[in-house]
């Protein structure tokens, strides 16, 4: 009997090929969407890692507690020793120094008097060391609008908009007025090497990127910095690895009773990011749920139509003495088979496309007028383990549900009225 039904399934394309195609299409979309969303959200996480949080971040306990105020008076000290030690403890990782700072930026006229002035939000990174990867990491080169990259510690980049407001051009001088680490006043001249576009309003209004040594000099922060960001050797954030680093670091270097001792937090524990991760998970869940629902409706209809077309078959099978339950079950088995085959091919196709988007990426750079520093221009999919099985959930669920619902229609009906319907 089973062989017989299987033969029928293979021969009746409306019963096999059509639903399999629907499942394949739905499943491949689910898989593709999952990989794409995981990729895009992963890119965003990575983006945040590069600019603010690192995969892991080291601060002093005191700085960490007030980090919204950027309290550079609570900065990490003796960081060169610390970083050397970290390179030994975690040889595959990269650690970089960052100082976030605020203050006033002044453009002097020919007499040295203030011509224009504005509040500045600055990031100090290693722009000059030969082996520094910060320029690439922060996408600085391609977002340069005017001038060139800094070559000396006292050269800076400021946002294009800010430069216009301050009426300063590349080669011009700006004066940074801020406080030193010890609370004294700091006034330091910098040369504007070039201008950049951040792509984020707040930063475009008042942003500045300076070399770390230049800022350390200006703020009296020799061998000190606000934050050390650590980057793992993998292209995507690996929370387990990060947690491992976080734990071992804190065991070795951190002393909760000393507020100036360093403490490490991993990206996922960064307050903003924590919610973000949950968001990623629930977002993926919602997508899958929507697909299950949509596909179920489509397949339910396919199943219903199939079921109606098979009234004759059901009638004959009842007449030859097959039990209703047996007929119903065989239809469910058929659905499971179709679901598995469709999901298999759907997953294969979905993974294929995802792999392509993962490797090549969708470059929206051409669509934007020009690359901006803080806006990613290439979106990539990311194939994670769930992508291999996730599609089977809507794939199987929808056909089986569709068949069950349409089957109940047949099953519930009185045998006799089924035959009455056969007559017409």
């Amino acid at each position, binding site marked *: 009997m089973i062989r017989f039904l299987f033969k029928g399934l293979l021969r009746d394309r409306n019963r096999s090929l059509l639903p399999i195609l629907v499942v394949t299409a739905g499943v491949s979309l689910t898989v593709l969407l999952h990989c794409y969303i995981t990729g895009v959200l992963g890119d965003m996480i990575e983006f945040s890692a590069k600019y603010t949080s690192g995969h892991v971040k080291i601060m002093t306990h005191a700085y960490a507690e007030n980090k919204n105020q950027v309290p550079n008076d609570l900065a990490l000290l003796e960081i060169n020793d610390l970083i050397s030690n970290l390179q030994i403890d975690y040889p595959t990782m990269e650690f970089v120094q960052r100082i976030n700072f605020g203050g006033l930026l002044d453009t002097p006229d020919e007499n040295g008097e203030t011509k224009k002035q504005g509040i500045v939000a600055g990031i100090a990174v290693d722009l000059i060391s030969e082996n520094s990867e910060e320029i690439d990491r922060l996408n600085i080169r391609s977002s340069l609008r005017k001038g060139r990259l800094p070559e000396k510690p006292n050269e800076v980049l400021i946002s294009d908009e800010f430069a216009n407001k301050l009426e300063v051009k590349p080669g011009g001088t700006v004066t940074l007025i801020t406080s030193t680490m010890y609370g004294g006043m700091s006034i330091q001249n910098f040369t504007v090497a070039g201008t950049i576009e951040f792509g984020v309003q707040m930063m475009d209004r008042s942003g500045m990127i300076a070399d770390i040594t230049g800022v350390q000099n200006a703020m009296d922060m020799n061998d000190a910095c606000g934050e050390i960001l650590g980057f793992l050797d993998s292209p995507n954030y690996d929370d387990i690895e990060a947690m491992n680093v976080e734990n071992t670091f804190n065991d070795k270097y951190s002393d909760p009773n000393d507020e100036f001792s360093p403490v490490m937090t991993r990206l996922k524990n960064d307050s903003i990011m924590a919610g973000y991760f949950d968001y990623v998970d629930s977002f993926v869940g919602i997508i899958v749920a929507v697909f299950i629902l949509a596909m179920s409706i489509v397949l339910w209809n396919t199943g219903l139509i199939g079921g109606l077309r098979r009234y*004759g078959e059901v009638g*004959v099978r009842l*007449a*030859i*003495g*097959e039990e209703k339950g047996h007929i119903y079950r065989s239809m469910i088995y058929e659905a499971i088979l179709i679901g598995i085959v469709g999901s298999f091919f759907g997953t294969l196709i979905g993974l294929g496309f995802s792999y392509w988007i993962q490797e090549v990426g969708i470059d929206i750079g051409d669509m934007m007028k020009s690359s901006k520093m803080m806006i990613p221009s290439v979106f990539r999919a990311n194939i994670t383990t769930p992508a291999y099985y996730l599609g089977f959930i809507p794939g199987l669920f929808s056909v089986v549900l569709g068949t069950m619902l349409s089957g109940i229609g047949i099953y519930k009906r009185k045998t006799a009225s089924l035959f009455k319907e056969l007559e017409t």
Partner: protein
Amino acid sequence: MENSEIVTVKDLIKRYPIGKGEFTALNGIDLTFGTGEFAGIVGPSGSGKTTLLNIIGSLDIPTEGSVVVLGKSIRELNHKQAALLRRKHMGFIFQTFNLLPVYTVYENVEFPLLLLKLSAAEKKKAVMDSLEWLGLTDKMKSRPAQLSGGECQRVAIARAMVKKPELVLADEPTANLDSENSHHILQTMENLNKDLQTTFIFATHDDKVIKYLKRKILIEDGKVSADDVITN
């Protein structure tokens, strides 16, 4: 020949719920059929022929009264037992043939045997015999779509006959056939009735069928109004 009773219907009443009320389709039927009969339930459309045939075929249950088929009381059978009764002892022929389009003639005829525990050789022999009775041997690899209406109904008869059932129930078997084909299939069934002692009960209002019947039971408004044995 017609010694043992195969179907006994006593005081059969069948009511269908319609809206809030009920509709009485069969209103006190008393009938017996003996083994080897070639009988027809005859009457105008809506008189209750199909209803009666379905109850005899255990596809429907009586509201009141008793129907005993091959020693089994239809009212007391559960789904499984009714299915078993049909599987082992009954063949059905429908007005609309109800062949399965994706299967060949051979496979359509083989279908009822799949639920019975037969060896491959037994199955093959039964199918080939049945195809031969109906003159379909040369069509056994065709699909129903490639056959004429008459040929389709012959396949349906072959399917009903393949397990050599004691009882064949045929509901308007000629309604979709022209007169030549109607006569042809009735002659075939007449021969099967003679050769295999199979009991045939028809439901029909077609004169072409009525001509062949050995017994004509007229029902009107859910009641038997005449029951004639035809001798010729």
